[in-house]
C-alpha cells in the first residue's frame, strides 16, 4: 500500500518536474524513463500483493470529516498490474516515439499525472476520493487528447470527450449517492455494510452502467472514444485504449460485485445485452473505418463488449449461487482485460510507428510496409492474431474461457437467462469471427500489397525503443497464450474475494493444460498445439527442402495472366470490407453504393459513391442535441423575468426540495 502511494506521489512529482523541465531537450527521455521505472516497480509490487490480504490506509486529505481512504485488495491489485504494465510499456515506447512530438510541453506534464490518476481510482476506498481521481483521470486524458490542438478534428474530439466524460462522472456521482444512502456513508466500507433495496439497487446499477460504460465505450455511449483515442499521440492512445477502459471496467466490477451486495439475477441483463451489442457493433464499426487508429479504437469497443459479457455471466452465476462458474467468468473477464491491454498496446504502438514512418494514418494511403518495416510488422501481426482470438495467442485463451462459462449456463435457475445466454454466445462468436476479418483487413491494407503512396514506399523501420516495446508486448501475448494456467492461478485471489469461489488449480495439471471445470469436460493446451504446429511446419520444410526442390525463382506476379494494372488496382481497405459491408451493414449502417456511369462516348470518369450512416449519431446524439437546443431556447424566457417572479421561483424550489427531503428521510 505504502509503495503504491509513494509511486503515485512520485508520478505527480514528475508532473511538476515536467513543468520546470519541458524546455530542455533531455526532458522527454528523463520523464519517460522515470515513468518506466516507477510503473515497473508499481506493477511488480501489485503483482506480489495480489495474493496477500487487503491493506488499508487513511490519509488526512479530501473532505475533512471523511479523510482519504485507500485500500489495496485482490481486485485492485490485479487492475494495478494492468494499469502499470500498460503504462510502463507505453513509457518505453515513448522513449523513442516521444522524440517526434512537435510540442512536448503539451504532453509531458499530463502524462505522469494521467497514470497517477488511474492508479488512484483503483486504490480509492471512498466515493469522494474515487470521483476526484476519476475526474482527474478524465481531465488529464482530455489534456493529452488536446495535445495536437491545431488539428481541426482534435477540437471536435476534445469537445465530445469532455461532454461525455462529465456526463459519465455525473451518473457515477448519483450512483454513489444512492449507495451512500441518506446517512451519507461515503466510505466504501460503509456502503458494503448497507445493501440497497431492490428498486434502488436497480437504479444504482443503471447509473453505474451509464457512468462506467461511457468511459469504457459501451454502445451507444461510445461516440467519443473513436474520436478521442486516435487524436492523442500514439503512446497515449495505447494508454487510453488499453488501460483507461480497464479502469472503467474496474469501476463497474467494484460497484456491482463489491459495493452493492448480493446480486439479483436481473443485474446481469444490462451487462449481457449491452456487452453483446457492443462486441458486434464495435467490430462492425471497425470494418467500416479506414483510419488505422480509429479501427483500433473501435476494436477496443468490441473487446470492452466481450469483457462486459463475461462480467454479466459472472453476475448471473453469482446470483444463482454457482460460485465455481462465477469464478470462471470473473477470471475470464480479468484475463481478457489483461490480454487486451497487451495486444492493444502493441497494435497502437505499431500504428504510431507507421505514422512516424509515413506521415499517413489512413490505410488507403499505406501498403507494402512489411518489406520496409519487417520487425514491427511481425509484432503487429502477432498482436493482430491475438486480437482476432486465434490460438496460440492470449486473446484466444480468454475468449475460450468465456465460451466455457457460457456452456455452464444451462444450470442457471432462470428461464429467461437460459434463453438469453446462447444468443449472447452467437454474438460473441460473431464478434470473434468479424474481428479476424477486421484484422486481416487492417494488417493487409497497411503492411501487405504494394505501397499506395510515395510516403509509404519510402517508409523506414522504427527506432529501437519503439521496437522493444512492441516486441515485448507481442511476446507476452504469445507467452500468456502458451501458459494461460500461470495467469489463471495468479488471478484466483480476485474471484475468491468477489464471488467466494475459485477455479480448479491449474499448476498441478500435467503438460500445463488448462482445465476450467473438469478434465472430462474441456481442456486446452496452447503450448502443445503450438509445439505441434511448429514441429509439423519445420518437418514439412525440412523434408521438402531435403528430398524435393529447394529452388526459388523471382518473377513479376501473375494475377491470373493480367498485366501490371498499377497500384490502385489492388484491393483497398474499403473494397476488402465490401462483402461484409453488404451482408452486415445494410441495415445497421444503411450502407449502400451508388454508381454514376457515364454514357458510351462520354469521357468523364465514372463515380462510385459509398454511403454510410452512424446510427448512434443519427438516432441518439443529433436528436438529443437538437432537443437540447430547443429546450434552451424555451428556457431563455427565464432570463428576462422581474425580481418578484425570481423570488417566487426561489420559494417554489425551496418548498419542492423540502418536500422531497421529507418524503425520502
Amino acid at each position, binding site marked *: 500500500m505504502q509503495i503504491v502511494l509513494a509511486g503515485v506521489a512520485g508520478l505527480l512529482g514528475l508532473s511538476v518536474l515536467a513543468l520546470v523541465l519541458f524546455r530542455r531537450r533531455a526532458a522527454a527521455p528523463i520523464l519517460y524513463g522515470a515513468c518506466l521505472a516507477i510503473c515497473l516497480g508499481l506493477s511488480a509490487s501489485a503483482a506480489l500483493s495480489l495474493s496477500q490480504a487487503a491493506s488499508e490506509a487513511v490519509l488526512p486529505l479530501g473532505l475533512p470529516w471523511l479523510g482519504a481512504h485507500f485500500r489495496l485488495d485482490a481486485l485492485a491489485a490485479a487492475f494495478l498490474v494492468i494499469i502499470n504494465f500498460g503504462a510502463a510499456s507505453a513509457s518505453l515506447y515513448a522513449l523513442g516515439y516521444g522524440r517526434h512530438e512537435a510540442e512536448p510541453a503539451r504532453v509531458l506534464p499530463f502524462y505522469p499525472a494521467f497514470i497517477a490518476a488511474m492508479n488512484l481510482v483503483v486504490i480509492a476506498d471512498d466515493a469522494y476520493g474515487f470521483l476526484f481521481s476519476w475526474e482527474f483521470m478524465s481531465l488529464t486524458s482530455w489534456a493529452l487528447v488536446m495535445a495536437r490542438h491545431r488539428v481541426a478534428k482534435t477540437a471536435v474530439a476534445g469537445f465530445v470527450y469532455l461532454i461525455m466524460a462529465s456526463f459519465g462522472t455525473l451518473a457515477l456521482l448519483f450512483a454513489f449517492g444512492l449507495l451512500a444512502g441518506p446517512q451519507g456513508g461515503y466510505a466504501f466500507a460503509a456502503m458494503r455494510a448497507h445493501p440497497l433495496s431492490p428498486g434502488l439497487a436497480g437504479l444504482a446499477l443503471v447509473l453505474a452502467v451509464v457512468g462506467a460504460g461511457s468511459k469504457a465505450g459501451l454502445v451507444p455511449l461510445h461516440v467519443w472514444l473513436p474520436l478521442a483515442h486516435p487524436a492523442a499521440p500514439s503512446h497515449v492512445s495505447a494508454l487510453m485504449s488499453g488501460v483507461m477502459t480497464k479502469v472503467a471496467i474496474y469501476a463497474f466490477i467494484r460497484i456491482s460485485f463489491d459495493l452493492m451486495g448480493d446480486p439479483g439475477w436481473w443485474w446481469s441483463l444490462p451487462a449481457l445485452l449491452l456487452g453483446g451489442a457492443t462486441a458486434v457493433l464495435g467490430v462492425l464499426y471497425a470494418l467500416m473505418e479506414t483510419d488505422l487508429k480509429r479501427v483500433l479504437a473501435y476494436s477496443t469497443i468490441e473487446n470492452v463488449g466481450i469483457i462486459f459479457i463475461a462480467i454479466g455471466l459472472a453476475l448471473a452465476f453469482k446470483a444463482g449461487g454457482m460460485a465455481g462458474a462465477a469464478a470462471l467468468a470473473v477470471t475470464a473477464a480479468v484475463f481478457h482485460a489483461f490480454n487486451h491491454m497487451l495486444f492493444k498496446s502493441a497494435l497502437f504502438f505499431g500504428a504510431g510507428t507507421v505514422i512516424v514512418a509515413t506521415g499517413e494514418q489512413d490505410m488507403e494511403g499505406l*501498403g*507494402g510496409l*512489411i518489406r520496409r518495416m519487417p520487425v514491427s510488422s511481425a509484432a503487429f501481426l502477432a498482436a493482430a*492474431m491475438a486480437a*482476432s482470438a*486465434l490460438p496460440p495467442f492470449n486473446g*484466444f485463451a480468454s475468449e475460450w474461457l468465456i465460451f*466455457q462459462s457460457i*456452456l455452464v*449456463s*444451462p444450470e442457471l435457475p432462470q428461464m429467461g437467462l*437460459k*434463453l438469453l445466454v*446462447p*444468443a449472447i*454466445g*452467437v454474438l460473441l462468436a*460473431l464478434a*470473434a*469471427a468479424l474481428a*479476424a*476479418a477486421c484484422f*486481416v483487413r487492417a494488417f493487409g491494407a497497411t503492411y*501487405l*500489397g*504494394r505501397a499506395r503512396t510515395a510516403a509509404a514506399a519510402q517508409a523506414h523501420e522504427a527506432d529501437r525503443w519503439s521496437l522493444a516495446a512492441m516486441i515485448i508486448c507481442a511476446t507476452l501475448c504469445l507467452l500468456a497464450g502458451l501458459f494461460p494456467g500461470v495467469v489463471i492461478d495468479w488471478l484466483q485471489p480476485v474471484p475468491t474475494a468477489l464471488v467466494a469461489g475459485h477455479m480448479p488449480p491449474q499448476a498441478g495439471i500435467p503438460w500445463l493444460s488448462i482445465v476450467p471445470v473438469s*478434465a*472430462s*469436460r*474441456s*481442456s486446452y*493446451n496452447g503450448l*502443445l*498445439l503450438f509445439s*505441434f*504446429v511448429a*514441429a*509439423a*511446419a519445420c518437418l*514439412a*520444410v525440412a523434408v*521438402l527442402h531435403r*528430398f*524435393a*526442390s529447394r*529452388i526459388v*525463382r*523471382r518473377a*513479376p*506476379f*501473375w*494475377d*491470373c495472366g493480367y498485366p501490371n494494372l498499377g497500384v490502385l*488496382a*489492388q*484491393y483497398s481497405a474499403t*473494397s*476488402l470490407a465490401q462483402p*461484409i459491408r453488404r*451482408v452486415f451493414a445494410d441495415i445497421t449502417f444503411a450502407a449502400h453504393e451508388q454508381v454514376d456511369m457515364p454514357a458510351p462516348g462520354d469521357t468523364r470518369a465514372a463515380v462510385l459513391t459509398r454511403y454510410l450512416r452512424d446510427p448512434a449519431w443519427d438516432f441518439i446524439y443529433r436528436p438529443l442535441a437538437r432537443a437540447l437546443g430547443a429546450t434552451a431556447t424555451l428556457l431563455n424566457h427565464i432570463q428576462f423575468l422581474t425580481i418578484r417572479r425570481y423570488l417566487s421561483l426561489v420559494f417554489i424550489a425551496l418548498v419542492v426540495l423540502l418536500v422531497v427531503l421529507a418524503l425520502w428521510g
Partner: protein
Amino acid sequence: MMSALAAQFAQMALVLALAPALTGLTRKMKARLQRRIGPPIIQPYRDLRRLFGKDVVLADNSSWLFRAAPYLIFAATWVAAALVPTFRTGLQFSWAGDLIAIVALLGAARFLQAVAALDTGTSFGGIGASRELMIASLAEPAMIMVVFTVALVAGSTQLSTIAAFMADRGGLRVSLAMALFALVIVALAENSRIPVDNPSTHLEVTMVHEAMVLEYSGRHLAMIQLATSLRLLFYISVIACIFCPFGLITGASGWLGYGVALAAYLLKVIVASLLLATLETAIAKMRVFRVPNLLGIALMLGLLGTLLLFVSRGM
C-alpha cells in the same frame, strides 16, 4: 499410455496419407456421376509429387510471410485433423485442444491464408480474401453453435468424450438433427465446395479459395493443396465421429478390433465422399451474395438446437 501414443502417431500418418485419396475419390465419383471417366483416384498424389519437384516462382514483391504461410497452414490443418478421433478415442494428445480450440486452429490457418493472399497486392488475392472473410464471419459462429449443441448433449467439448458418449448413449434428438444439418452447411462452406464455391473453377466470378492461392506455385502450392484435402478429411471425420461413431474403439482392443475400426472409418469416408459428389452434381453454385442466406440458416439452426437443449435441461 504406449498404445495411446502409438495410436496418435498412426492417426497422424493415416490422415496425411488418406487426405489426397479422398480428394481423388470425390473427383472420380463426381466425374462418373456426370458420365465422364475422370482422373484416376491417385491423381492428387501424382499432382503433389509433380509440384514438389517444381521450382517455386515467387512474385518480386512477396515477403517472408508469403513463403512461411503454406507450411503453417499445412501444419495447423494437419494437427487439427490429427486430433479428431477417427478409429479410436482417447488419443494421446486429444486433450490438447477441445473442439472449440480445434476450430479456432483452423481459423488461424484461414487467417494466414487470407493474409498471404493479400501479400503480393494483386486484385485476385484481394477478391478471394475479402469473400473468404465474409463467408468465415458467418460460418465460424454457426460452427460454434454446433459445438454448443453437441457439447450440451454430451456434457463436454472434448471430441473423445463426445464420441464415446454418442457411441454409448447418443439417441435421436431434434437438436442433434439440427446440429448435423448446420454442420454439413458449414463444412461445405469451409471446404469451398458447391454451392458456396466451386473447387474446380478458375473463373473470377465464382472463385473464393482458388483466387487466394493464385500466386502460389511449386512446393508451396503442394502444401496448400494438401492442406485443402486435409481440411475436407477433417470435417468428414468430425461429422463421422460425432454423428456416426459406430465402430469407433472407446476402450482397449486387440488387433482385430483395430482392423474393424479402421475398415469402418474408411467406409464412412467413402460414403461421405459419395454423398458429397452426389450433392455437388445435383445442385448448382450460388451467387456469392446468396451464400450468407445459406450460412444464416446454419447459424439459426445451431442456435435453435442450443436453445432447445438449454430449455429442456431445466425442466
